[in-house]
C-alpha cells in the first residue's frame, strides 16, 4: 500500500501501539506457559554462548590433541601445550580421548547445530512451503503432483533418505544441510497445503473475492497471513528435529567429521570409551536433549498462544 505522508506521525504511533498491544497479548498468553518461557531462556542462553564461541574457546585449541590429558575428569586442572606455550588449563567438563576440552568442543559444536537448525528449516520451508501453498491453493493437477512427490518421499524412512543423500552427494557440511532439508521438505509441503486448504474454504476468502481482490492479493494478504501460526509452530519443532537429525548422521560418520566438533560426532567418538570415561558421553548427549526439548516446548507454547481464535 503506497501512502503519501499525511499526519504520519500519529498514524505511525497508533500502528505501533497496535503491534505492541498484539505483542503484549501474545506475550501474556505465552508467559502463562512457564515451561515454554523457561525454554526461551535456555535457547537464548545457548545461542548467546554459541555466538561467543570464539571468545570463550579458541577453535584451534579445542581441536589440538593433548594426549597426556586424555579422559581428564570434569573439573581437573592440567598442563597443556598450545602454540608453543605451556600453561595450566581447567577442564570444566573434562577432556575427551585426545585430551581436548569437552566444554569447548560442545560450545563450538553448539554453534554448528544452531546453524544447521536454522538453515535447514529455512531451506525446507522455502521449497516445501511454496510447493504446499501452490498445491493447496491451486488444487487439481498441481496438487496431485505435489502430493505424489511427498508420498514418495515419505515412504522412504527419513533417516535412510538422509543417509542416501549424504552418501550420494559426498560428505560435507553443505551436503548435510541439503540432506536434512530435503528430508524435512515433504513435511512442510503437507502442513502448508493442509493449512492453505483449511483457510481457502473460509468465507472471508470469498468475501475478498467479492470486493474484487485478485489471486495474488488473496494469497498474500489473506491466506499466508493466516497460515503463519501453524508454520511458525512447525518450524520451531523442526529446528529441534534438524539438530537431532544432524547429530544422528554425524554419529554415523556422515556429515560433519572429526576433528570438527559436533555433538553427534563427539558421541560417536565417545562410544568406544563408555566404560572408562562416561563423562565424554554424558555432556554432549545432555546438550542435544536439552536443546531439542527446549525447541519442542517453545513450539507447544507457541501453538497455544499464537491463535487468536482460541481466545473466543
Amino acid at each position, binding site marked *: *500500500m503506497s*501512502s*503519501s505522508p*499525511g*499526519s*504520519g506521525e500519529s*498514524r505511525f504511533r*497508533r*500502528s505501533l*501501539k*497496535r503491534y505492541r498491544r498484539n505483542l503484549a497479548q501474545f506475550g501474556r498468553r505465552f508467559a502463562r506457559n512457564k515451561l515454554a518461557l523457561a525454554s526461551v531462556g535456555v535457547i537464548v542462553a545457548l545461542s548467546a554462548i554459541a555466538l561467543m564461541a570464539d571468545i570463550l574457546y579458541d577453535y584451534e585449541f579445542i581441536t589440538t590433541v593433548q594426549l597426556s590429558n586424555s579422559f581428564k575428569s570434569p573439573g581437573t586442572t592440567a598442563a597443556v601445550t598450545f602454540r608453543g606455550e605451556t600453561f595450566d588449563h581447567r577442564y570444566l567438563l573434562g577432556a575427551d580421548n585426545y585430551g581436548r576440552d569437552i566444554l569447548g568442543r560442545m560450545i563450538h559444536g553448539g554453534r554448528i547445530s544452531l546453524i544447521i537448525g536454522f538453515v535447514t528449516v529455512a531451506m525446507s520451508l522455502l521449497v516445501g512451503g511454496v510447493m504446499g501453498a501452490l498445491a493447496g491453493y491451486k488444487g487439481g493437477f498441481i496438487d496431485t503432483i505435489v502430493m505424489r512427490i511427498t508420498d514418495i518421499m515419505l515412504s522412504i524412512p527419513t533417516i535412510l533418505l538422509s543417509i542416501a543423500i549424504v552418501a550420494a552427494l559426498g560428505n560435507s557440511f553443505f551436503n548435510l544441510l541439503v540432506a536434512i532439508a530435503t528430508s524435512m521438505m515433504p513435511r512442510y509441503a503437507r502442513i502448508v497445503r493442509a493449512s492453505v486448504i483449511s483457510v481457502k474454504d*473460509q*468465507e*472471508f476468502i*470469498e*468475501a*475478498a*473475492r*467479492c*470486493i*474484487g*481482490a485478485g489471486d495474488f*492479493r488473496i494469497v498474500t*494478504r*489473506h491466506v499466508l*497471513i*493466516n497460515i*503463519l501460526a501453524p508454520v511458525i509452530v512447525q518450524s520451531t519443532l523442526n529446528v529441534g528435529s534438524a539438530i537431532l537429525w544432524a547429530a544422528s548422521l554425524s554419529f554415523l560418520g556422515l556429515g560433519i567429521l572429526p576433528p570438527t566438533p559436533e555433538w553427534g560426532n563427539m558421541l560417536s567418538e565417545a562410544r568406544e570409551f563408555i566404560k572408562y570415561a562416561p563423562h565424554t558421553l554424558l555432556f554432549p548427549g545432555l546438550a542435544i536433549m536439552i536443546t531439542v526439548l527446549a525447541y519442542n516446548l517453545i513450539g507447544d507454547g507457541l501453538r497455544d498462544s499464537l491463535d*487468536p*481464535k482460541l*481466545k*473466543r
Partner: protein
Amino acid sequence: MTATSNGNDRPLLEVRDLRKYFHTPQGALHAVDGVSFHIRRGKTLGMVGESGCGKSTAGRAILRLHEPTSGTVFFDGVDVTAASRTRMHGLRSEMQMIFQDPYASLNPRKTVAGIIGEPLLIYGRVKDTDDYEAQVRELMKTVGLADRLYDAYPHELDGGRRQRIGVARALALNPRFIVCDEPVSALDVSIQAQILNLLGDLQDRFGLTYLFITHDLSVVKHISDDICVMYLGQLVEKAPAKTLFQEQVHPYTKALLSAIPIPRVGARKKRIVLQGEISSPVNPRPGCRFAPRCPLARDFCRITDPPLTEYAPGRLAACHRMDEILQGKIHIQEARG
C-alpha cells in the same frame, strides 16, 4: 416463463434460467436448476427455503463467486455472466455481498479498519492515507460502529458488531445491489433486530437493492417487498410479501408457512406436517421436485416439471394443480391429531 420487464421501469437485476451444477462422485448436484426472477430498483427480494435448497448458491452464482453452469444474469442491462475479467472487476464494485457467518467471513488477522478499507484500496478509491482513514471512519459511523474500534480485531468483538463490519465492507464501494446471505441467522434476536433495522435504514438512505436470502420466514416477511420460495434448486412460488403471507398457492409454501411457530398464546393454527424430508439434489428425477412429499401430487406431477406461471400480476407459482387450488377445488389436509 418469466415476468418480463416492462419498458422504462427496467428491473435492476434480472436472472434468466440460472443453473449451477456441482460435480460430485455420485453425479451432478443440481444446486440451482433453472431459476428466473427479477428485482426492482430499491426493493428487496426475499429468497426463502430450507437448507440445501440452493438459495445461497443462487446468490453466489449471481455474483459469479460460483461460475454459473448456464443462464444469464443482467445487472442494469449488462450481461454479468458474459462479462470479461476486467468488466467483471468493474461490476463487482456495484454488486456486493453480506455473509452469513460473522466469524468466518472476516479475516481474523486484519483490523476492523483493514477489513472495511480493503475494497477502497483495491479500487483505488482513496487519495491518501488521510482520505483512507476519513472514509473508513465515515463507513464505521454509517453502520454504527464506535470510533474506538478502528484498530480492533474481529475476535475482540461480538457477533452483532462483526456483522456490522461485514455490512460496512459491502457498503465501501457504494454498490447498488447487495446479496444478503442469511445475515442475521447467526445472531440472537435482540442483535438480529438491530441489524435488520440497520439494513432497512441503509436501503432508505442509499437506495439499495437487496436480494435477501434466509430460512427465517418472519425475518423475510419483515424486510422484503417480494418473496420467492425455493425448493430443491427451483423456484416454486413468487409473490409480493404481504400477499404471500395471506394466500399461498403452492402446497410447499403453504406447509412452510404453517410450520412457523407463532409467539402468541392461542395463535396455534392448523398445521400441515409434511411427511419425509427434502430429497437429494444429486441427479434429481424429472417432474415436480416437491412431488414425493406433496399431499396433492398426482402421477403426472412426477413426470414433467411444472412451469413457473404468472396467475395474477406479480404472483407466480409452479404447480401442476395450480388451477384447481386457485378455484378452491382442492385443499391440503391440515393437521393430524
